[in-house]
């Protein structure tokens, strides 16, 4: 039998590692909620599983997404993960050939060169030796890059590297040592027996002056011991992302989605975070306001180790930039909302005092302006004008006595209160019998889409205006102004509406692009979701955003959110208008040309426009 006591640390480590991983997998899967379990059962034995396997290879081994973000960082991950994986697979094949059976000792592949001392005596021995040396070289190059990254993370295109916990440090140091030690151990053996390849053999030759006989065993012991350290630290360190990402990819392909409450899937997601730190660079709180301890990577780490504070959980704009940037696809903002959730009192109602009206006209459209639009009355006036010009019969649902849509409550974790508001608003909407709900506020829009159960479709006013133009009900003239469009977080990343606002603006003026737009657009800083930062910090975020948005010196900065408008307007840098306002002053009204000219309240716009 091929045995030596130095294999014991490795074997023990491997057993501990597998036991812990299986335990964790089982407890997470048990914690999945009903809907998630349903989808897993439904899709487990379908084509989706094969697709997921392909994705595992692309993401967990080759790291295509990181590669796209940053080629050097991608190569580092790929050489470590894929290289190591191939080392195991090829090593296992080699040792099976050597032993002449598939069921040789499981450690043989790991310490192969020590046991296979007589060179070139099995099938394709030379080729195997060459491949194994080559793979080792690839992995070593990855390790080298990792060390360089630690020292100067700027080189990899990242501004901030992540701070580490104790287990991370143990696992990281072990990881750095595994492959150099393997190289040294194999080389000493090669110096003694001559079984090395182009790498280990040559290094072995160089070592011939050293007392290789005395060095050989200690080096193999050291190699086995660092493997032990890495395996045992792994489940408690960031490297848990390696086995967890695999199960996450499968669950996602099977159709499990994160809900409003923390579940097993959330556990899996936070364990799948590799703490790569890409989200730190994406976060405006970091690069515009110099707050460096609240980003998703820290939030996830604190959640995982159960020491999350309220201040960290609440200090986030929920802008979604980090979710967009995360190469693993972790739903960072959703998990943050789950962690903000508060206890509920069954049966309690909070807003019984509100006596909301039912609709008694028979409108085509229900219009919900939203609380924030009431602070920007010009948006409301413009929408009224647009409805009238298109001859649409509408009911302005929150004109006099409206309620909040419920989303701000939910974002702070008061789910019960939010549901209370939702049920009241839903009753009002359905009382109208209208065919479509239009809203001016992206926050409400997101809430209507995701949290309400509505019988009618909901449109943001930009989408609605686009439809009016397409159907010929609304005709606009080109104002000749240059316009840059600011994507509101909730409308863009939140609801994936990028094209409708742009299509409308192209009708009215010359649409210019800005450096960061669509998925990469910035938050205006006014987000309600952050209950920690003060006005001064919000101002920094806003000013930085304005800087980017107005780089091309447009006549007008357009947006589609009353809250964005309110915060950007105070920057006093450029004329800021909601799309509805720009549309309202550029309507071509053939039927009643006189009425438009005499419409008094519209003159204000014309003036402030110039």
């Amino acid at each position, binding site marked *: 039998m091929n045995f030596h006591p130095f294999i014991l640390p490795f074997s023990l480590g491997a057993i501990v590692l597998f036991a812990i991983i299986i335990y964790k997998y089982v407890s997470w899967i048990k914690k999945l909620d009903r809907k998630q379990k349903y989808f897993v059962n439904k899709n487990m034995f379908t084509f989706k599983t094969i697709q997921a396997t392909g994705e595992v290879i692309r993401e967990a081994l080759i790291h295509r997404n990181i590669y796209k973000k940053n080629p050097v960082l991608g190569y580092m991950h790929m050489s470590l993960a894929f290289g190591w994986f191939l080392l195991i697979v090829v090593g296992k094949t080699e040792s099976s050939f050597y032993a002449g059976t598939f069921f040789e000792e499981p450690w043989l592949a790991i310490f192969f060169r020590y046991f296979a001392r007589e060179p070139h005596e099995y099938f394709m021995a030379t080729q195997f030796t060459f491949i194994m040396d080559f793979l080792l070289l690839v992995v070593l190059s990855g390790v080298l890059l990792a060390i360089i990254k630690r020292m100067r993370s700027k080189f990899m295109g990242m501004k901030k590297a992540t701070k580490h916990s104790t287990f991370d440090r143990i696992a990281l140091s072990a990881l750095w040592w595994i492959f150099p030690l393997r190289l040294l151990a194999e080389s000493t053996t090669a110096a003694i027996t001559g079984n090395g390849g182009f790498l280990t053999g040559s290094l072995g030759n160089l070592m011939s002056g050293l007392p290789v006989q005395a060095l050989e065993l200690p080096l193999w012991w050291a190699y086995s011991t660092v493997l032990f350290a890495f395996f045992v630290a792994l489940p408690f360190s960031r490297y848990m992302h390696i086995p967890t990402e695999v199960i996450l990819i499968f669950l996602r392909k099977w159709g499990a989605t994160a809900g409003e*409450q*923390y579940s097993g899937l959330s556990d899996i997601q936070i364990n799948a975070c590799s703490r790569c730190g890409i989200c730190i660079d994406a976060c405006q709180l970091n690069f515009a306001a110099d707050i460096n301890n609240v980003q998703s990577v820290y939030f996830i780490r604190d959640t995982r180790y159960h020491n999350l504070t*309220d201040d960290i959980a*609440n200090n986030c704009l929920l802008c979604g930039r980090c979710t967009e940037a995360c190469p693993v696809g972790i739903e960072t903002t959703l998990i943050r909302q789950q962690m903000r959730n508060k206890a509920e*009192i069954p049966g309690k109602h909070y807003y019984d005092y*509100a006596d909301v009206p039912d609709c008694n006209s028979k409108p085509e459209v229900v219009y919900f302006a939203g609380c924030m639009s009431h602070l920007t009355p010009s948006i409301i006036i413009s929408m009224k004008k647009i409805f009238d010009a298109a001859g649409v019969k509408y009911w302005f649902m929150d004109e006099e006595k409206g309620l909040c849509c*419920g989303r*701000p409550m939910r974002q702070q974790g008061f789910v019960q209160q939010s549901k209370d508001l939702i049920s009241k608003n839903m009753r009002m909407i359905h009382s109208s019998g209208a065919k479509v709900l239009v809203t001016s506020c992206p926050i409400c829009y997101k809430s209507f889409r995701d949290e309400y159960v509505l019988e009618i479709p909901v449109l943001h006013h930009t989408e609605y205006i686009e439809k009016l133009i397409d159907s010929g009900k609304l005709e606009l003239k080109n104002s000749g102004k240059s316009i840059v469009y600011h994507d509101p977080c909730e409308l863009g990343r939140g609801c994936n509406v990028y094209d409708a606002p742009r299509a409308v603006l192209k009708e009215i003026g010359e649409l210019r692009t800005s450096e960061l737009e669509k998925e990469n657009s910035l938050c205006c800083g006014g987000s309600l979701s952050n*209950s920690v930062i003060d006005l001064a910090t919000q101002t920094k975020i806003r000013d930085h955003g304005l800087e980017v948005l107005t780089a091309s010196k447009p006549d007008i900065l357009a947006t589609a959110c009353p809250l964005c408008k309110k915060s950007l307007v105070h920057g006093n840098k450029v004329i800021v208008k909601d799309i509805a306002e720009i549309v309202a002053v550029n309507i071509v009204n053939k039927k009643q040309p006189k009425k438009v000219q005499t419409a008094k309240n519209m003159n204000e716009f014309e003036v402030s426009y110039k």
Partner: protein
Amino acid sequence: MKNWGFKISKPRVLDFDTANLDAYNRLIEKVPSAHRCLMCGACTATCTANLHTTFNFRNCHLMFRRGQFEGLAEELDKCMLCGKCKLVCPRGVNTRAIIYNLRIVLSDLNYKKIEL
């Protein structure tokens, strides 16, 4: 009688033996802008909840500042956290953060995070 949306309060004397002024200092630590409030009432004038009921955030803030917590928790439950008050405040007070924190501090419900 017509409900005008406000009432005349009984005269109140601040009793320094019973009033808990310490709580306000803790609030200031969490929301430093709270002390900038000049009690102008703009927040209440714009308040969404105030459209429907007599809820008055300015008054709640004042009560808390004076250490008078009676009935405050139920009163704050009326707020919808919509954020209008924060946007209109001329002094840049993070009113919404005040309400959020007061809710957590004052509620009977131990607003702990959901068990993991």
